[in-house]
């Protein structure tokens, strides 16, 4: 063990909130086990190592890269491609890299709409000249460049070849340590493209709440509209819970905290479009037979697209809003 060369590990963030990096820090005292077998060679949140240092590494120099965050702009894409070249194993770490995550919800708007809102209309913005960011602009000192803001939020898989996916928003730290130690000890790795650090069964399989066969409801509630009894299945109480179409492995953290599952672990194997599956099962729970009554119940579901595709819009069949041309 002493003479074995240490694993070289890099952690990078694309369009991310930083929560994934923090989930790695959450290993707490296990950090000693991690640093005993690994050297961190690149990690913008913690280490002062620049992009050009990564560029100077030989190809395949890094053993494992954990890439968290979606691909939102040209910088994210450039780093994804660079790290792919420099790494033996590239892991999409967290919901954003895996399925687009929360940043992926921006696919409900076009780039123009986002720029208009953020730089022109928002209440806290003062922009009398109506200036919008441009990738290049000429200044007296020379040309300035900033990354190109893409119209679409993409997943890591959309721009590079990905070896493994660790889902979660953020991934549960224990799962990460398990996966990491498996790589470090040279255990046999699952086939390329696998989702690791999660199980194949749905959340409901692990959830300890009381469930019956009667899943019919006459009204859907948002979590704050109802006194949760803390014991009964959320769906049976009329609260939308993404459990049935979400992988287990997180330890049903949200449900144990009395909040319904939001679906960050993504769909179980074999499901191509998690939101559509969820819509299929949620709709059939409605205990009404008349069109009008059904419509009233559906009104309670304020934002179906945002609810059922909260973490997965960029990998959905309809991954962004279509702009219909006038005929």
């Amino acid at each position, binding site marked *: 063990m002493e003479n074995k060369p240490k694993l070289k590990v890099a952690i990078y963030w694309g369009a991310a909130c930083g929560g994934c990096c923090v989930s790695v820090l959450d290993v707490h005292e296990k950090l000693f086990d991690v640093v005993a077998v690994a050297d961190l060679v690149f990690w913008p949140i913690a280490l002062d190592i620049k992009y050009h240092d990564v560029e100077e590494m030989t190809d395949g120099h890094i053993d494992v890269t954990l890439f968290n965050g979606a691909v939102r702009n040209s910088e994210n894409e450039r780093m994804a491609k660079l790290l792919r070249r420099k790494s033996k194993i590239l892991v999409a770490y967290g919901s954003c890299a895996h399925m687009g995550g929360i940043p992926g919800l921006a696919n*409900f708007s076009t780039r123009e709409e986002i720029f208009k809102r953020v730089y022109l209309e928002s209440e806290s913005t003062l922009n009398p000249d109506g200036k919008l960011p441009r990738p290049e602009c000429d200044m007296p000192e020379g040309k300035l460049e900033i990354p190109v803001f*893409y*119209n*679409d939020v*993409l997943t890591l898989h*959309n721009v590079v070849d990905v070896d493994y996916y660790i889902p979660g928003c953020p991934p549960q730290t224990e799962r990460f340590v398990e996966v990491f130690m498996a790589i470090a000890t040279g255990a046999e790795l699952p086939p390329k493209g696998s989702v690791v650090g999660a199980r194949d069964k749905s959340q409901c399989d692990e959830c300890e709440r009381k469930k019956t066969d009667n899943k019919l409801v006459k009204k859907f509630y948002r979590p704050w509209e109802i006194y949760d009894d803390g014991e009964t299945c959320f769906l049976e109480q009329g609260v939308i819970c993404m459990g049935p179409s979400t992988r287990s492995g997180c330890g049903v953290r949200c449900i144990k905290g009395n909040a319904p599952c939001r679906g960050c672990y993504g769909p179980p194997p074999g499901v*191509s*479009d998690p*939101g*559509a*599956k969820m*819509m*299929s099962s*949620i*709709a*059939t729970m*409605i205990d*009404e*037979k008349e*069109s009008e009554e*059904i*419509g009233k119940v*559906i009104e309670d*579901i304020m*934002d*179906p*697209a*945002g609810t*059922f595709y909260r973490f997965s819009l960029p990998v*959905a*069949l*309809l*991954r*962004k*809003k*279509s*702009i*219909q*041309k*006038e*005929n």
Partner: protein
Amino acid sequence: MEYKPTILAFLCNWCSYTGADLAGTSRMKYAPNVRVIRVMCSGRVEPTFVLKAFREGADAVLICGCHPGDCHYHEGNYKCLRRYHLLKKYIQQLGIHPDRLRLEWVSASEGNIFARLIDEMTETVAKLGPCEVRKTMETIN
């Protein structure tokens, strides 16, 4: 070239497909814009099927099942009706016109109603113009 809409129709085996068949065997004339997929029950039509249809370039999707109370499997058409309402709300959020998705009950004896439905829907969708979903999903920028 004149735009001719493509309508994808999911017809239930027991009522609507037989109804469409009746329209055919009775030599009724109706718009040639519909592509039929026979399913065992309208309750079999998953939202995924409908979304996939739009994704692959359908200009509109039609689902037909047995009249309420007549379902061969008792409840399938009700399940379909509930999914349809949710789906309709969802597709509008994604920028798809609600008239591009339609659910109708057609019994085995209603060949004439099926023929009229297709004519009428073709006309509606022709007015809406080509559905942009496929093109939008194919562009990455």
